[in-house]
Every structure is written in C-alpha cells, then in structure tokens.
C-alpha cells in the first residue's frame, strides 16, 4: 500500500516537473473574414476535434470568432481576439497556450506580439502563449491582394470600390505588408524577434487534376480556383500565398510535403482541413 502511494507521488512529481501539469490549451484563430461560427464554417468540426485530441485535457480549446475583414489592429480584429483569448486563459486557467492560426490570423496575433503595450490585455496573452503554429501565414502579403487593390487614378479618385477590397485585403498587399513589417510588426528579417515562437507550416503547391482523388480534399472547386490564382504567384505557392510570404516571419515548422501523407502539397484551402493527415501532425505538435 505504502509502495503504491509512493509510486503515485513520484508520478505526480514527475508530471509536475515535466510541465504536463501546466494547463495547456489550444486556440484556433481563423483568417480573413468575419466569422460567427468558425468552428463549422472556417475549420470544420472534424479538424478541430481531431487536433484538440493532442491536449492533456481535450476540452481546453477555443475557436475564435472575430471580424478579420478589419485591419489587424482594429478593435473588432485584434481587440476581439484579445478579449476571447483573455477570457479563455482566465476561465480555463491556461498557462501554456498554443495558438493555431490560418492565413491572416497569423498577422493579427503577430500584431499583438509586436505591440505589447497597445492594450493592457496583450501582456497577459503573450505571457501565457507557448507558441504559435501559423498555418500558411500571409506574413509578407500576397500579390493577389495587390492585384485587386491596384486601382489607378480614376478608380480611386471617383471613390469606386472593389467590392471585395476589405481592409484586411488592403492590409495583405505585398506593398502594405512591406511597410507594416518594417514599422509595426516584429519577426521578419532585420526586425526584432517575436517574444514567443511563431512557426509556419508552408503550403507549396495546388493539385487540381480531376482524376486525382487528392484534389477533392477540402472541395474540388477550391482547388481549381487556387490553381488559377497560382498563375500569378511563384512556382512555390499554395494558390494564395507564395512560400516566401508564408516563411517570411518567425521560423518554418515544416513544408507540407515533408510531413503530409503521400507527400501531398497543401493548398491554401487544405491547410485548414483534415487533408493528408495535417490534423494528426498538429495533434502531435501540441502534444510535444
């Protein structure tokens, strides 16, 4: 009996010493767009519920819903994110937060990490943050955003708007991100480093061959669209972002083909879906 008690005590001490007792949680942070049900509409329940199995307590997760059509610093963007993360951290007692971002969501959390004195909630979030796993982050912007915002004299002067030209799309132009990365954001080359690891998962290609079942993961129509937009990008791209942009801030966790099932590439749409075992890769990452 005494031996069993001592073993349990030793196990508890070991768990404490290894940090397993620290309260780990996962936040899923969506990309561009105003989300009210990102669980279903942006990530899908299959993806979220698979990834969170990597947690010691799989109930400790939050799916953020904010308006990322706004500029990253906007109260409805970073302010909303700060509010939802702070509530999650406080209510669940999170001491080791893993933030999984997709696309422009990486810029919004990078804003918080780069501007820690802007809002009294930011230091608490940064302090609780263990790491950011940034899925296909638009760190250096995309030429596609420049393409839709390249209004010339008349278009701008008359106040005509490109209907799809939200502030977030403006922000993600290559020319605008070049400015923000040198003025307001940390983590890119030549700039101060970010306070916590920002690790990017890079999508490097788009498959849309109609005979290839891999093209159907996440929705075939998205693959066709992204393969078209890929024409405007470098050969290494996920159909929305060039690899250089995705790898432009923080460090690279992995390029898709190096770890996906069948060495399949992840298009920009597939990097937020259960495609080619991405979910299980992320599960093992948050376990580690």
């Amino acid at each position, binding site marked *: 009996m005494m031996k069993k008690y001592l073993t349990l005590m030793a196990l508890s001490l070991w768990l404490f010493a290894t940090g397993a007792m620290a309260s780990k949680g996962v936040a899923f942070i969506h990309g561009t767009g105003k989300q009210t049900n990102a669980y279903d509409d942006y990530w899908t329940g299959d993806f979220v519920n698979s990834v969170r199995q990597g947690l010691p307590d799989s109930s400790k997760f939050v799916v953020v819903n904010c308006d990322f059509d706004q500029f990253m610093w906007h109260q409805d963007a970073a302010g909303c994110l700060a509010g939802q993360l702070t509530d999650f951290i406080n209510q669940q007692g999170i001491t080791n937060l893993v933030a999984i971002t997709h696309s422009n969501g990486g810029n919004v959390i990078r804003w918080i990490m780069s501007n820690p004195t802007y809002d009294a909630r930011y230091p608490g979030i940064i302090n609780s943050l263990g790491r950011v796993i940034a899925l296909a982050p638009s760190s250096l912007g995309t030429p596609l955003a420049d393409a839709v915002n390249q*209004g*010339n*004299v008349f278009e701008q*002067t*008359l106040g005509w708007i490109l209907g*799809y030209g939200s502030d977030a799309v403006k922000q993600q132009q290559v020319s605008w991100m070049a400015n923000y990365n040198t003025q*307001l954001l940390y983590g890119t080359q030549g*700039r101060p480093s970010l306070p916590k690891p920002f690790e990017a998962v890079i999508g490097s290609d788009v498959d849309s061959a109609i005979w290839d079942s891999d093209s159907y993961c996440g929705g075939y129509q998205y693959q066709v*669209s992204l393969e078209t937009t890929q024409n405007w990008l470098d050969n290494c791209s996920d159909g929305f972002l060039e690899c250089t942009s995705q790898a432009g801030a923080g460090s690279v966790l992995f390029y898709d083909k190096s770890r996906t099932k069948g060495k399949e590439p992840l298009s920009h749409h597939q990097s937020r879906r259960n495609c080619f075992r991405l979910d299980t890769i992320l599960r093992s990452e948050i376990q580690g």
Partner: protein
Amino acid sequence: MKKTMIAGLISISLMSVGSLTADEFEVNSMSVPMQHRDAPSITREHQPIHISFAETGEVWRNHQTAAVALESNEYWFQASGAELKRGVDLDITAPEPLVRFSSLTLPDSGQSLGGNQTGLPSLQPGLMGKQPGLSSVSRAQNSRRANAINPDQLEIFREGEVQPMRAAKQNMINEAQLASDTIFQRSGAMKLNASIGTGRFKMRSRQSLRDSDQYLINIKEKGSQKKLHMSAPRLSLLSGEAITFGAQMKDRNRTVSGADYLAYVVSPDGETRSVKLSAGKKGQWQIDMPSGFGSTRPGELHELYIDAYAAEGNNQLRRSGKIAFSVATPTAHLEDIQLVMDGDKLADSMINVTSEGRYELRGTLFGTDENGEMRSIMRSHSAYWLTPGLQQVALKLDQKILEKSGLKAPFALKSFELIDQSQLGVLHRQAEI
C-alpha cells in the same frame, strides 16, 4: 518641467526567440514642425505598460539597406465597357501572359466621391494617350455592379487585323469558377497562347456591356525578366517630408534606356494627385508629397504608383508598381534621451507633446561580453498616455533578463523608436542613443 504621474505599472518579462538586427534603422528628420492630430486617438488605453522581451545575444549590426525592394513584371489599366467593346490595346513582351479582368462597383449616388470632387484627376501631359481607360470615363450615378466579363466572349486581334486570332486563349476561368476564392469575386482570367507571340494586340468583348461600366485589366508576364524595380530607403514619413525612392526598368540586370516614368500618389481616402518626379542618380527619384493631401485613418498607408513605359521596336514595354508609405502627423518631438541604467530604468527621455494621446518608447539594450563584443539583451517597451507639454518619461528594463544575460557594461541602447500609438505613427527612429 512637468513630470508625468505613473500608476498601475505592468512589468512582465518574457523569453524571446530569433534574432535582432537593425538594418532599416535611420534617424527621422526632426526638422518638421509639430502639428496637432486631427483624428481622435485610435486607442483608449490609458494605463502605463512596461514590457521587455529577452533577446538572444546577437552581435550588433547596423547596415543601411533599403527598407523595401519590390519588382513588377505586370501592368494594369482601367477600361470602360464601351472601350472593351471597341477593343483595348494589350502590349505583350513575353509569351503566355496572364490577363485578368475585374468588374468594379460604382458608388451610391449620395456617396462621397472623395478626391478633388471634380471627378477628374490632375494628370501629366501625355498620360491620357498612354493609359487606356483614362480618357473617356463618365461618372456613374447609381450603385451597382458592372456585368462580369466572360472570357469566352473575348476576342484577340493582332494589331491592324480585322479577324480575331484562332486559339489565342487558353485556361479560361469564368466568374463562377473564380468566385469560390473570396479575393477574386466578379473576375475572370485567361492565359494567352504562346503561339500568338509578342507584340501589340487588341482585346475586344462581344458581350453587351454597359458603356459606362468600368473594369480593371491586369496583365502579368510571369517569368519575364523585364521588370520595374522599385525601392525606398524608408517607408515612414512625417507630414511635409519628401519621398525618396528608386524606380528603374530593367531587362535582367541591364537598365532599359529611354524609359518614361509617371507617378501618382493616392491617399488612404482615395484622393489622387499626379506628382512631378525629380530625377537623382542611378534611378533614384524624389517627389514632394502634396500639402493638405487626403485624410488618413490611423495605420492606413499612402501609395506611390509608378507606371513605366519603354519602346521596344514597334512594341511597348509597360510595367506598373507601387510602394506604400505611412505619413504620420508629427504630434510629439523627442527633445532628449539618455541611457541611465538605474534600477528598472533603462533610459530617461524628454518628449514635447502637442496632441494628447498614447506614446510608446521602444529600444534594444545591448551589453558587452567577455570578448568585448556588444550583444543584445532585451527589447524593451514603455507606453504612456501623455498630455500636451514637456513630458519626462522612462523606458524601463527587466532586471531579471539583464542578470540572466551575464552581459556587462558598457551598455548601449539601439534601434530606438518613439511611436504615437494613437495614430500608429512612427515619429522618431534612431539606430543608437
């Protein structure tokens, strides 16, 4: 001298990853007179906050390089429905160009038109003939979407010929196919076949487009080494400062001779002005920002558009590009800053404030290792809500990070910045204090 009251301090130390360099740091011109900020503060945070992140001991470097260097192998222009039905020129200098066409949305009749309110920009002589679509655009009266262009209904003609070319198009993508990606709604795209070669072509639509509808046409010559190279030594300006930038049309590394350059600046609210280019050496240019130009929401950027043209035999090489600048109102002036290293105080500063708001000091503390090399210790940030007048405020450090670094005096404060958080404007940058 007024000493600011400091209350409710937050101090948190954090470990950091990565490295610090300071390639883009430079001293902002402080000769610009101070001004009041028109807009209210974007942030309502009044609490002083101090936070430092540990740095990883990088050796100090301060190489002066361009803050941005961009390349473009594409160009764009606007065309009306009437022009598309008549045919617009496409100048192609590389095989298999990509052509994208996007419908523009017209504003409500009651919506502000922005800009100079005349509906017509001031244009440089010669521009009209060079930019299709700028010459005959009429003002829209109602808000509606222009009809999408169907690539199936587009015809490509070699210049001077009346019969459309066969098999000129490939990979045509219509509106419905592109709309699944939210960034390309109401757009179509196609690639032109390599077999048609290069030169001047005409693109004509057989659709019944409204004459006044407007479209943005973008031609990208992917893989072409004929590019417009753009650069800028810095991207943050104070109101009244001139923009210095580089723009050169190059064919690989060779500068294309005889190229013409046109430039426009566009404010965040859409006001547009053509600007006179003053040439410097080796493709460097300077323009004066127009005074009283546009209004700015905090964080939004001004854009400098550059259109470049060069003759290539009977053909024309065209490229477009842009650089985005921040233009901050000089709401405060750094009068003095001293490295003090006293307790939790890293530096003392004296700031002359004209507009009430939230201001932040940032800098990186360096110390000396056993070999006498300077290495980074921590990046420190201190922010305060300040009222107009002379304010003495401190940049604070984290003593735990300092002790853990093991680095000793002499210390140095580098990569220093004064930021007006109320307008997200960088007011002062200095490589070393």
